[in-house]
C-alpha cells in the first residue's frame, strides 16, 4: 500500500472537513436557487471521502493478498 500518498490525501480531506471555513457560517448563497452553498460543499466532500475510503479499502485487500502469496 502506498501509505505516503494515502496519508497526504487523508490530511487534505480531513482538513477540508475539520476547518470551519468562513463561507459555511452565516447567510448563504444558493446554488440552483435552492441548495445552500455550505451544504453543497459538505455533500461533495462527503462523497469524495467515500470514494477515498473505497480506494483505500481496495488497496488494503489487494496488499494483504499479495502479502499472503509472498
Amino acid at each position, binding site marked *: 500500500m502506498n501509505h505516503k500518498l494515502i496519508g497526504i490525501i487523508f490530511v487534505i480531506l480531513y482538513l477540508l*472537513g475539520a476547518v470551519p471555513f468562513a463561507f459555511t457560517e452565516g447567510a448563504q448563497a444558493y446554488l440552483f436557487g435552492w441548495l445552500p452553498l455550505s451544504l453543497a460543499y459538505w455533500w461533495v466532500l*462527503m462523497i469524495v471521502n467515500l470514494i477515498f475510503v473505497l480506494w483505500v*479499502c481496495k488497496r488494503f485487500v489487494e496488499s494483504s493478498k499479495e502479502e499472503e502469496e509472498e
Partner: protein
Amino acid sequence: MNTGILSLGIIMFYLIAMLVITVLNGRKKKQKSAEGFFLANRGVSSVLLPLTMIAAMQSTFAFLGAPGMYYTHGVSYIAIVLSQVWVALMVVYFGNKIRKLAIKNGYMSLGDYFQDRYDSKYIKVFASCVSVLMTMVFLAMQYVGNARAMSIVSGDAISYQWAILVSVIFSLLYVLIGGAGGVVLLDAVQAIILLLGIVVAAWIALVPVGGIQELFHQVAETAPELLSRPGPKGTYTGKYWFMQFIVLPFGIWLCPHVWMKSLMAKDENALAKSAISIPVSQILIYGFATLFIGFAGHLLLTPEQIGAADNVLPVMMTIHSKWFIAALVMAAAIAAGISTINAMLLVSSQIVSQDLILLNKKGMISEKKNMLLSRTIVLVIAAVCGVIALNPPETLVQIVQDVAYTGLAQLAPAFLLGLYWKKCTRMGAACGMTAGIVILFATRILNVQPLGWPGFMWGFFTNILLTVLISLVTSKGNGERA
C-alpha cells in the same frame, strides 16, 4: 380496533420474529466458550461483518436523535458524517493491527491489550472502567430511544415504563440465547431493516413538503439560520466544529462494541468491507435521510406537537403516514436500537466479567462457570441500564456525545502510542489517561471552558502531552512490550 394497539402488535410481532431467528440460530451454534460467546470465534465473514457493523453503529439515534439534532441545530449536524468517515480508516489500519495481535496473543478486549502492552493492571482496570461506564450510558440511552419510539407510535397503548421493560426483556433473550454468534445473524437482518426504514421515513417526510427543492425553499424562507453554522442555538462555533473531528472518530472507534468488531473479523476482506459499511450507512442516514426528516419537522409540525426534539420522527410518522407504515418504520427504529443494545450488552458483560471480576483468575475457572458468570453479568447490566433509563434526559444525542464519546476518546493516546511508538511507557500511558479523564469530568462538572475551548480538548491534549513527556523521561518496566 384502536390503531395504537395494532401498531404495538406489529412491533411485538417484529420482536418475537427476531427472537425466533435467534433461537433457531442458537440451536445451530452452541456457545461453549467465552471466545465463542463474545467474539463469535473470530470468524465473522465479509457478508455478515459489514451488516453487524452497521447494526452496532446505527442505533435509535438514527431515527430519533439525528432528526432531533437537525431539527434543533440545522445543517451543522452534518459534521457527524464528515468526521465519522475516518472511523473507516481506523478500522482498516488500527483494527487490522490489533486483530493480528489479538489472534497472536489471545486478546479478547482492549483491557487485555493494555495489560499485555504495558504490563499494568492499573491501566487495564482504569480503561475497562471507563469503557464499561461510558458504554452503559450509551446503552441506557438506547433503552430510552426504544421505549419512546414504542410508546409514541402506539399512542401510549404501552406506557414508557412498560416499554423499557419490554426492551430489556427482549434484548436479554437475544443475547443470552444467541451470544455473539446468534447476535451477528440477528444484527445482519436488523441492519437491512433499519436502512430500509430510514429511507421510507425520509420519503414520508418529503412527500407532504413537496420534494427536496421545496423543502430547502421553505426552510430558507422560514428558518434560514438552519442552513449554515453555527445553527439556531449558536452551538456549532468554529471551535466546537473542529472538536467534532477529534471526539467523534476516536470516541466512536473506541466504543467497545465497535472496536470489538475488528476482533470478530474472519480476515482482511471482512475487515475492509466492514470499514466501507461505515461511510455508506452514514451518508444514507445522516447525510441525507435524517437531514430531510429534521427539516421537514420544522415545516410540518408545531413545537407543541413535538415536545422533545427527539420525537420529530415518531410524531411525524403518526401524523403524516398510515398507522401501519408508522408502526413498521418504528419497528425499524427499534431494530436499530435492539441491535446496538445487543452488541453493547455483550461487550459490557465481557469487560466486567473477563477484565474486572476475573482479573487475577483468568484461566483458573472452568468454561462452564465462566459462561454462567458472563450471562449473570449480562442480566445485571441490562437491569441497571433499564433502571437508569426510567428517568431519561430530553435529548439522547447530546448526552452520549458529551459523556460517552468524549470519555472513550481519552483512551486513544495510550492505545495508539502503545501500538506505534516503542518508547511509550506504562507510567506515561497511566498518567496521560488519568489526567485526561480527570480534566474532562472536572471541566464538565464545573461547567467551564478555559479560553473558550471545551474541556474535552484540554483533557485530550494534556493526555497526549503527558503520555509523550513522561514516556521520554521514564524507562520501560520488565514486562512491558516493545
